[in-house]
């Protein structure tokens, strides 16, 4: 509610500044409002010696912030400041100490913000992009920067807790559990090649086999040892597990924190489906736009948005004017097109399934053909992700939705396609590893996983994710070099109708963001099996930033259809959360259900990856065990659950109360306007009556 006095204060400031216009009626109404509410606010006409409500709460940080937000000319502000400083307020020593403390804290915060500003990555590039191409494109690059930082910090986490201890304690340490199980399961020999041709190193680099397979890159290299000296004890498998879990939790917290800041703006402005025209007219122009070309494009953009809105209006009118027959025809067409779209998507899934199985059967091949078979699932996924959205776009044209709905529908379909195609790939792998879920079948009976085909199945899954990441990067580079630059050269230098119709490429934000989300989901899925994948992804995203920047400035024209930056950032993060959920599901399943390989990795000889936690648990001291048992017991968890329910109910109630008061204030605003109209009419009527009376009185005299 503190925004209300500030708003009124600002309105008064405006009064003070211009001193004419609307004050008198407003003043009368204001007095009426003040008396009708038992409010304790006094509304001084810029009497800054009497403290506004803010200062009472915040101590000495009140006045500086108040001064800056007052719409007075600078000279007046300085005069006011001088007056303020000359007044020595009579305060107790405790209050003055508190004021000094808040003031120094404020200065410290400012200094910290200044230094952080200096360290922000790519600040100038992002400014340039925002100035030339607008907020929508800039939001894509901001999202990319967020992912780079997230991946880099995750890599530091993994390096600190898993990689460096593994390197340091490589030779030391004792095995945690004695080897059990049949000997055939423990056979794992990744370096069986002997003399290798030179080009094979390159192929191995791309597919993660050969010399790359048995390295710190993949799960198989880590040992299941525990080091226990006098000073230090480090349990590597436990560290591996907990780091993986903490990595997921940390990523989720980062995403939610970032969502919180963007959601605040979106909620405060309340959806804003209404008021499109006024919003476009008054907030459409980006004042930060620089450069002649950007300005012209911005003008075209505003023009386009207005036209789109006008067209939506006329479309709505036409849709309302449809007869029942036409409506039925339209809806049945839409349902049919929906089925067609789903059919295309399912065809893509089937293609992925077949390709993965085929690739597995041909895994022994050598040379370039072998590389092609290795990469077959990635190729099929990428082709599907490219072709199916194009077809869906054409389908959406036929469905004749409004333009904004079309964008959302296309986006949702593309998200569904990408994430579920990844899921299909994982499902196919699971099929092969666990013999279609049937543990007692012939191949899987011995070790409870298919040891003949996958002696170290975790490394295999890690390799698939690694290949997906590398292929994504290679495709981006190939598209940049082979498609985007030539397209621009053709369009610029060859003036024919075809070239003009094709035109320069548009930077479509939504497709690019989906690519980022897909890449990040792949990394999350593979992080448990390929611990260095976040580092590779950081490098990949950094390269992607520079490639995209280059293509943006040299090859693209800005999209006419804009993406609203605030709501779209929120949408990107929601989609990223979907990807996170998929990766978490995969991780939980691998931790709990599938038996770890017996020939490799830090969890060999354990019945499941999670079972290391109980094993290590019993090594703790008795007191810790009892404490942890207590936390897990019902006596603790049920009250905790009840308490969190109460807290959640409180926040929900608070949110609904705020929403209701916002709606109430809006209605009051409308009513105030109508009151004003009514009073003005009354005044006119009365003055007219007064005139008539005067005339008749004058006539009688």
């Amino acid at each position, binding site marked *: 509610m503190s925004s209300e006095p*500030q*708003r009124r204060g*600002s*309105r008064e*400031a*405006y009064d003070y500044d211009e001193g004419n*216009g*609307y004050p008198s009626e407003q003043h009368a109404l204001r007095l009426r409002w003040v008396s009708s509410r038992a409010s304790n606010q006094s509304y001084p006409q810029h009497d800054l010696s009497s403290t506004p409500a803010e200062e009472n709460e915040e101590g000495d940080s009140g006045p*500086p912030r108040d*001064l*800056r*937000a*007052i*719409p007075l*000319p*600078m000279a007046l502000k*300085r005069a006011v*400041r001088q007056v303020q400083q000359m007044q020595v307020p009579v305060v107790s020593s405790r209050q003055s100490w508190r004021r000094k403390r808040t003031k120094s804290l404020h200065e410290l915060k*400012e200094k910290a913000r*200044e230094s952080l500003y200096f360290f922000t990555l790519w600040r100038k590039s992002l*400014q340039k992009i925002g*100035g030339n191409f607008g*907020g929508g494109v800039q939001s894509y690059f901001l999202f990319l920067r967020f992912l780079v930082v997230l991946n880099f910090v995750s890599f530091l986490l993994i390096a600190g807790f898993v990689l460096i201890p593994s390197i340091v304690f490589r030779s030391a340490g004792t095995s945690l559990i004695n080897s059990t199980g049949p000997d055939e399961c423990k056979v794992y020999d990744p370096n069986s090649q002997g003399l290798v041709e030179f080009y094979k190193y390159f192929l191995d680099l791309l597919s993660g086999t050969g010399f790359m397979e048995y390295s710190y890159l993949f799960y198989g290299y880590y040992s299941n040892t525990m080091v226990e000296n006098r000073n230090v004890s480090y349990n590597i498998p436990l560290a591996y597990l907990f780091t993986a879990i903490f990595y997921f939790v940390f990523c989720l917290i980062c995403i939610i924190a970032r969502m919180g800041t963007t959601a605040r*703006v979106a909620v*405060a*402005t309340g959806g*804003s489906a*209404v*008021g*499109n*025209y*006024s*919003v476009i*007219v*008054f*907030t*459409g*122009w*980006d*004042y*930060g*736009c*620089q450069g002649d070309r950007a*300005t*012209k494009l911005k*003008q075209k953009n*505003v*023009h386009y948005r*207005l*036209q789109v809105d*006008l067209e939506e209006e006329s479309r709505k009118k036409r849709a309302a004017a449809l007869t029942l027959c036409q409506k039925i025809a339209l809806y049945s067409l839409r349902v049919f097109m929906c089925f067609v779209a789903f059919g295309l998507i399912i065809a893509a899934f089937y293609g992925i399934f077949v390709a993965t199985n085929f690739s597995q059967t041909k895994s022994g091949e050598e040379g370039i053909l072998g590389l092609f078979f290795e990469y077959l699932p990635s190729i099929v996924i990428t082709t599907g992700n490219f072709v199916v959205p194009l077809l869906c776009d054409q389908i959406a044209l036929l469905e004749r939705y409004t333009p904004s709905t079309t964008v959302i529908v296309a986006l949702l379909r593309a998200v569904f396609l990408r994430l579920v195609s990844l899921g299909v790939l994982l499902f196919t792998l699971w099929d092969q590893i666990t013999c279609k879920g049937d543990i007692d079948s012939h191949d899987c009976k011995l070790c409870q996983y298919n040891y003949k085909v996958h002696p170290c199945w975790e490394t295999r899954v890690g390799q698939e994710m690694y290949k997906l990441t590398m292929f994504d990067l290679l495709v981006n580079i190939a598209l940049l070099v082979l498609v985007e630059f030539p397209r621009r050269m053709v369009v610029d230098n060859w003036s024919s109708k075809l070239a003009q119709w094709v035109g320069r490429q548009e930077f479509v934000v939504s497709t690019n963001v989906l690519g980022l989300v897909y890449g990040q989901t792949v990394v999350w899925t593979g992080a448990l099996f390929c611990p260095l994948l976040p580092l590779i992804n950081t490098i990949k995203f950094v390269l992607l930033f520079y490639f995209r920047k280059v293509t943006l400035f040299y090859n693209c024209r800005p999209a006419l259809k804009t993406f*609203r*930056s*605030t709501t779209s950032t929120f949408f990107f993060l929601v989609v990223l959360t979907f990807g996170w959920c998929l990766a978490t599901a995969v991780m939980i399943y691998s931790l709990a259900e599938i038996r770890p390989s017996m020939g490799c990795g830090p969890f060999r000889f354990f019945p499941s990856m999670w079972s290391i936690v109980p094993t290590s648990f019993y090594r703790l001291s008795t007191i810790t065990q009892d404490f942890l048992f207590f936390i897990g017991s019902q006596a603790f968890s049920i009250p905790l659950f009840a308490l969190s329910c109460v807290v959640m109910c409180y926040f929900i109630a608070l949110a609904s109360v705020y929403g209701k008061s916002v709606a109430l204030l809006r209605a009051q*605003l*409308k009513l*105030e*306007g*109508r009151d004003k*109209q009514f009073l003005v009419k009354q005044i006119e009527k009365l003055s007219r009556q007064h005139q008539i009376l005067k005339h008749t009185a004058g006539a009688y005299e």
Partner: protein
Amino acid sequence: MGNKQTIFTDEQLDAYQDCTFFTRKEILRLHGRYHELAPHLVPMDYTNDPDCKLPLALIVNMPELKENPFCSRIVESFSEDGFGNLSFNEFVDMFSVLSEMAPRELKAIYAFKIYDFNVDNYLCKEDLEKTLNRLTKEELTPEEVQLVCEKAIEEADLDGDSKLSYADFENMITRAPDFLSTFHIRI
């Protein structure tokens, strides 16, 4: 940070810091920009508050303002005499309001002033038409302009007088999520 600049006294810099959203470095940088607009007019020594105003024509030559269709209106709204002659105080004030840290209410007040072409404290239909024409560089047909202006006033006008007062404008701005990011000049 302890540098020996002689353009402002420390007290002046503190005053500027308290009254605007800029830090000391940024204020000095702004003075540099103000000076390079007219090196022979603007003194380097501001310790005794010289009375120096730059005309509108010089200010709108800045690269940040040059391409803005509302550049003259922006400068006029921040000038005391209403004709666009800015002293350094007003120059700093202008960029402070347009910086990214200025609150929404403050920006809304000045945005209202900028779009109010005939300076009557109301955004009437003529004001909106002029705004729209400057926005789209007169590419809309006159009928479309009329339609958009009517619809805009219809949407935002709460008290039914077919023009927008400051209250209507501010209410509409609170529902615009991009206002803070678009009403922002980076300098």
